[in-house]
């Protein structure tokens, strides 16, 4: 079949020509003063907004070219780590609270203190919002959005069950009682008052803090005991037993995404998530949702705190750190850029930007902003920096909460296990 081989050879010739195209068009601008590679994670909505803002930035700063890239959260960190390991990190890096500590401590991103007041005019963010993006006293990221954990619920569903929905200031005990009452008054099959929050590290943290404890101490050790953890698991075991929360296999469907949360899959009337996910939840749910604070301990400490939803950082090896700082400022502080980004990444930390934004917001976004505003008087201080291994502890908690949920372990055993594994994980780092 000599024809077959001949055709291949002709193809190869044409192919080499086609090959050259992406080589030539690989997007390096000529005669620019600075070229910044920029990377973030998010969906296409965020990409649309960010690209528009970037265009505005380039129009306002003709000497700077920005090359934007984005992808989903799942792929972001593997790709970023590969590029950093290869010495090819992008200049502008969107950062997450937990990863920021890892990257900062290993010197992969640079401190931004030298740009404060100059390229980064973000003093009006306030001490708390600046401190929340700092590691060991140095600023490592520009706060993109203020965020806090919260309770998202469907008011109509609670009404249908004949129980008053949870509101700001409700206690943990009251919450459990309401869930039990919901189970009695509910007529929808396979539907419960609440998701099973035992595996949610943020909720656990809120519970610990309201009881005067915390996840970690300043020295990076565990700040709770096996008894505390057992009490936490016992709390949720009781709710589970009373039918107040979803069954463990429903909760196990939750993959830390909005569409797998029991609220979105139609199994629960209440769920727990970060406030900047509220808009996403509303998009996937037909019913009109509302957001309020986590339960508290009557007479206890404030459980919640204001956290940065994400931050913008600069790579340690960036050739154009000052220009990158300008870009960061444009996106989070300059109304020309910040208004384009909106509250899609979180409530802006600058009061001025926030006020400018509010009139343009749609209903769900406004609710998220109002939630942060109403919560702010009741928040406590930032917790200590998470130690190395904190990320792994998150996964350990989920796993043990599942073991308790599926009754492979009692709450007491779960508590002991959690503390034991924590000892290993934190030691390893």
């Amino acid at each position, binding site marked *: *079949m*000599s024809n*077959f*081989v001949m055709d*291949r050879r002709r*193809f*190869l010739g044409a*192919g080499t020509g*086609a*090959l050259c195209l*992406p*080589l030539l*068009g*690989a*997007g390096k601008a000529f005669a620019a003063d600075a070229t910044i*590679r920029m990377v973030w*994670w*998010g*969906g*296409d*909505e*965020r*990409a*649309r907004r960010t*690209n528009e803002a970037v265009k505005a930035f380039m129009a306002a700063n003709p000497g700077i070219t920005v*090359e*934007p*890239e*984005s*992808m*989903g*959260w*799942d*792929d972001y960190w*593997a*790709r970023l780590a*590969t*590029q950093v*390991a*290869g*010495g*090819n990190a992008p200049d502008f890096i969107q950062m997450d609270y937990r990863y920021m500590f890892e990257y900062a401590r290993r010197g992969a991103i640079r401190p931004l203190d030298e740009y404060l007041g100059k390229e980064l005019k973000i003093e009006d963010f306030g001490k708390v919002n600046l401190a929340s993006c700092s590691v060991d006293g140095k600023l490592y990221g520009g706060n993109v959005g203020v965020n806090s954990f919260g309770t998202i619920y469907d008011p109509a569903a609670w009404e249908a069950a004949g129980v008053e929905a949870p509101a700001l200031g409700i206690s943990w005990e009251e919450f459990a009682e309401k869930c039990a009452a919901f189970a009695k008054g509910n007529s929808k099959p396979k539907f419960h008052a609440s998701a099973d929050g035992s595996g949610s590290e943020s909720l656990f943290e809120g519970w610990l803090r309201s009881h005067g404890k915390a996840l970690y101490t300043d020295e990076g050790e565990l700040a709770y005991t096996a008894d505390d953890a057992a009490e936490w698991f016992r709390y949720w075991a009781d709710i589970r037993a009373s039918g107040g929360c979803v069954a463990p296999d429903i909760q196990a469907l939750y*993959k*830390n*995404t*909005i*569409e*797998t949360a029991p609220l*979105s*899959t*139609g199994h629960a009337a209440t769920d727990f998530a970060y406030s*900047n*996910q509220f*808009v*996403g939840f509303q*998009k*996937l*749910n*037909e019913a009109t949702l509302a957001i309020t604070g986590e339960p508290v301990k009557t007479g206890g400490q404030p459980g919640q705190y204001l956290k940065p939803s994400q931050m913008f950082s600069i790579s340690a090896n960036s050739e154009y750190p000052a220009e990158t700082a300008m870009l960061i400022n444009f996106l989070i502080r300059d109304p020309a850029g910040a208004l384009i980004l909106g509250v899609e990444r979180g409530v802006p930390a600058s009061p001025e930007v926030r006020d400018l934004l509010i009139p343009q917001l749609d209903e769900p976004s406004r609710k998220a902003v109002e939630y942060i505003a109403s919560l702010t008087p009741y928040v406590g201080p930032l917790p200590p920096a998470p130690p190395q291994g904190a990320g792994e502890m998150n996964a350990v908690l989920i796993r043990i909460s599942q073991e308790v949920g599926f009754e492979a372990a009692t709450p007491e055993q779960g508590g002991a296990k959690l503390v034991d594994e924590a000892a290993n994980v934190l030691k390893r780092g």
Partner: protein
Amino acid sequence: MTEAAHHDMPGRTGSHPYLRSGLLHALLMAASFVMLYPILWMLAGSLRPASELFGGDAGLIPSQVTLKAYADGWFGLQVNFGRFFLNSLAISVLATLGNVFAASLVAFAFARLTFFGRRFWFALMLGTLMLPYHVTLIPQYVLFLKLGWVNTWLPLIVPKYFAVDAFFIFLMVQFFRGIPRELDEAARMDGCSAWRIYRKVILPLSMPVLATAAIFSFIWTWEDFFGPLIYISNMKMYTVQLGLRSFVDSSGTSSWNELFAMSILSLVPIFLIFLFFQRLLIEGIATTGLKR
């Protein structure tokens, strides 16, 4: 041309031939529905509104049909989705050409030639199949970075011309060994060199496996996600898979409808390639006339 003429296993001469073939058809059709159900559901998902996707009663029939997802998916990203299709097509074609050609050369060596260390190289070749790519990822990235190939398509295409995909070598070895040696020996006695044996004897008789290899190579290159993720930064050079992944962000809202719509569309070209090469698979036998 009726396919029934080929390799028709006797059995139709048994009793109740129509009942048996009818039963077979019924089973196959039931199996087909089961196989296709998830894809049908995805098709339905591409046509229904977002709020209906994950709630309680998301069956096969959408309550309202809208083509919005297709429009949003095609035009909604920074770059037109059609561009991604062209990119994937170019990369897949180039990679497949290299893969099939190079693998056939190497497989011929293993299957038909003797040389010092042949077993050793064969074992090494198989060994390259066993290492998970996540750990060679970073050293390879550094290698390509030094070559200046990062942010181009080169890391996805050039290695194929050097037969790095041991799967295809192994596949062809097994098939080449099924071709009778008498043909080789006859050619040698006529004074043919190894190259002529390869071209005139082995290749023509290997249409089924070459077509198979082409199908797989094309489809796998089309489906490959991790390679493009690491090596392509410029969105204009994205492949279809990268484009699809950009609809999904597990930390926030994902555009599931658009993802489903574009996934359905992206099945079309590879399906067509598959159908096209299927015929080569069948026709290959007709033209080679393999007889003893």
